[in-house]
């Protein structure tokens, strides 16, 4: 057994353990050297990224990996699952790639962006913990473990949202976020307990199997509702999205970037619960959870764009833009589910053609949204760094002094509003065409929201970067190189994804979509599949 | 067994009552004490539900530390709940 094989075997555990170890070491290293700590954080996230990509190559080639904590024995003992186990399939690793990219960019960006603040040792500790929590939520195959990581993510991000404690609004946003997260997490725990009481299992695959045997009892319905409501709130779907612009708008820009990952991890949890855990019963004809998701998505898109138009704060505006983007994912995935629920029973989830396209589009949009909105947040942070101002009414004419930032903003603008040839267009095209098959109104609303997003961000472009050179900002200089590097990384990925969408879709997104809809692959190992 | 059954009924009722008191009282310190008593009752309930580990944790964390932190926070802020603005 050579070292690579061993690392690969333990990769799911190490992906969590290494940033955790980094977080525990950060206070100690911080005593030695400030600069060393920053570089240490970057290195830790880099190593984690290596593990994630190692796992990705393995999973995309050979199918899901499982990892049992605490034992080398078989995963299934007497037809039941005793220990915690990670089950990493294509969907998990797809989300983990998003998470680790965001985390890496955030930590590089923080190097210069947060330089002048105190309390940075705790900042980096919490940043690494947030990464850990996010990755844990994405990789775990155990319900309670999911809850624990959800809480780690919530606590770390709520504290980081309130990082600038001298700003009243930041503290308030942090408080709102922790209250909302705690209530969401508690209801998730309650639902987990309901399922545990029914089936005496905490493993997602095991519960899915038991659910398939027992049918869809009343308790299961209640648990499903609690899961959907709580995770949709954590995932920022309207009308429970209101914490999101507060938190995104007040956090430091690097944290806003990571918050996108945290939000999407909750959304991932929602999809995982609906498709995998309830996969055996979800397409029972009378119950169309798909329509719930579609409706939530529609409301989210409309509210997001309409509220974004009237915003005057740069980051809050992007926060509402992010809300609208989240709507697309719920819409697309819900459409996929609905098509199947309405189809005649001979058509399974895999064979309904537009269902697959819709889910592929929705998942592709998850990564595109993370990149596009993330880039815009980084630009907003750069503008704040240079001018100490986020109000759109006071900014103006920055393009003269901040050329690169302006270019990055334009890339982000075009990508987020779904204009070719950037990545947003590819995923939105998939969403428009597949939602049209379900109901034309859905795709019309989706296109309308895209147009409004373009209008919104053109407004930002006009009021921040264009216009006459204001005397106040004559001395503004371009931001430091590490921030530009972070933005350039994301912009580069956006362009690559935009130019070669089919490569990404075939190699990364379609396996993830297949893993999402086909829960028999996830349950395979229970019957000794691998 | 009747005694045990009676305890199983009385303890939850007392818990609900002290939770209601904790919500009802305007004086936050008094509300915190009511919350602590709810925690203690909860710990007792855990004990009769054959969970001594959890009972110890609930008594140590719920009744002692939670109360301490709440009292500290109330000291740093304001003691009474305000009426409508």
């Amino acid at each position: 057994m050579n070292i690579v094989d061993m690392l690969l075997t333990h990769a799911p555990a190490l992906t969590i353990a290494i940033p955790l170890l980094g977080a525990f070491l950060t206070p100690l290293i911080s005593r030695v050297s400030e600069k060393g700590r920053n570089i240490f954080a970057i290195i830790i996230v880099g190593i984690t990224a290596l593990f994630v990509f190692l796992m990705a190559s393995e999973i995309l080639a050979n199918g899901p990996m499982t990892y049992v904590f605490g034992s080398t024995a078989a995963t299934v003992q007497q037809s039941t699952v005793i220990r915690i186990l990670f089950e990493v399939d294509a969907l998990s690793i797809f989300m983990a790639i998003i998470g680790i990219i965001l985390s890496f960019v955030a930590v590089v960006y923080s190097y210069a962006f947060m330089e002048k603040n105190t309390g940075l040792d705790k900042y980096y500790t919490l940043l690494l913990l947030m990464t850990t929590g996010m990755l844990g939520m994405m990789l775990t195959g155990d319900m309670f473990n999911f809850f624990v990581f959800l809480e780690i993510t919530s606590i770390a991000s709520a504290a980081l949202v309130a990082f600038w404690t001298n700003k009243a609004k930041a503290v308030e946003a942090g408080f709102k976020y922790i209250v909302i997260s705690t209530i969401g997490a508690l209801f998730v725990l309650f639902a987990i307990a309901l399922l545990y009481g029914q089936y005496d299992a905490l493993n997602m695959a095991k519960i899915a199997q038991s659910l398939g045997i027992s049918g869809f009892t009343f308790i299961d319905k209640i648990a499903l509702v609690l899961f959907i409501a709580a995770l949709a709130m954590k995932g920022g779907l309207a009308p429970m999205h209101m914490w999101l612009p507060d938190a995104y708008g007040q956090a430091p820009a690097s944290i806003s970037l990571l918050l996108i990952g945290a939000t999407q991890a909750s959304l991932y949890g929602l999809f995982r619960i609906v498709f995998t855990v309830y996969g055996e019963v979800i397409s029972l004809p009378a119950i169309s959870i798909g329509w719930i998701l579609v409706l939530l998505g529609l409301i989210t898109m409309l509210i997001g764009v309409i509220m974004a138009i009237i915003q005057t704060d740069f980051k809050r505006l992007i926060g509402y833009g992010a809300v609208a983007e989240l709507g697309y994912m719920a819409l697309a995935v819900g459409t996929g589910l609905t098509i199947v629920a309405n189809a005649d029973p001979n058509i399974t989830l895999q064979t309904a053609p537009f269902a697959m396209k819709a889910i592929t589009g929705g998942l592709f949009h998850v990564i595109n949204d993370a990149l596009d909105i993330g880039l815009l947040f980084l630009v907003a942070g750069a503008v704040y760094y240079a001018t100490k101002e986020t109000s759109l009414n006071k900014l103006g004419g920055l393009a003269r002094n901040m050329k690169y930032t302006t270019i990055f903003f334009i890339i982000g603008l075009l990508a987020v509003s779904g204009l070719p040839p950037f990545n947003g267009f590819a995923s939105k095209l998939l969403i428009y065409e597949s939602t049209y098959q379900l109901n034309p109104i859905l795709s019309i609303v989706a296109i309308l929201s895209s147009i409004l997003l373009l209008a919104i961000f053109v407004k930002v472009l006009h009021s921040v970067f264009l216009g006459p050179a204001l005397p106040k900002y004559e001395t503004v200089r371009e931001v430091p190189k590490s921030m530009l590097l972070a933005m350039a990384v994301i912009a580069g990925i956006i362009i690559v994804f935009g130019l070669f969408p089919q490569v990404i879709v075939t190699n990364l997104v379609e396996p993830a979509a297949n893993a999402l809809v086909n829960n028999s692959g996830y349950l395979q190992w229970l019957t000794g599949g691998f | 067994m009747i005694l045990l059954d009676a305890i199983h009924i009385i303890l939850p009722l007392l818990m609900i009552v002290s939770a209601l008191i904790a919500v009802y009282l305007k004086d936050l310190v008094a509300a915190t004490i009511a919350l602590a008593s709810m925690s203690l009752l909860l710990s007792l309930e855990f004990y009769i539900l054959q969970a001594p580990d959890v009972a110890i944790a609930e008594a140590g964390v719920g009744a002692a530390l939670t109360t301490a932190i709440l009292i500290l926070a109330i000291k740093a802020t304001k003691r009474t709940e305000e009426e409508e603005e």
Partner: protein
Amino acid sequence: MIEMMLETFETGTGYWHPLVWVTAFVIIFLIVYIIRGFGEKKYKKGTGQTQAFLSGNKEYDKQLMHVQSSNLYWGWTEALKWIIDVLKKMHTGNVSDYVLWFVVVMGILLLFVGLM
């Protein structure tokens, strides 16, 4: 690998090829650039050419010249005032209202799913 990158992007009913699009875009850009080359070339810095022309009036202060973001799309927000007012009323920023929305959604879903 190269072949894979040149694949067309299939969307179920349609297809799209970003590279073709980019090529077309570049060609159009070149044409526009050539046409632009036919235009007037006499551009001098520091003359009246670079100044804002406001019907012969003097240029205002820079801050005044800049159209503020809240004034952009004024007509749009006026036209949609009824819906924007409702939405603004929804976004109170008050955390117990956030919890209320959660309870409302949970209640609706419970009615919808639980009674089915």
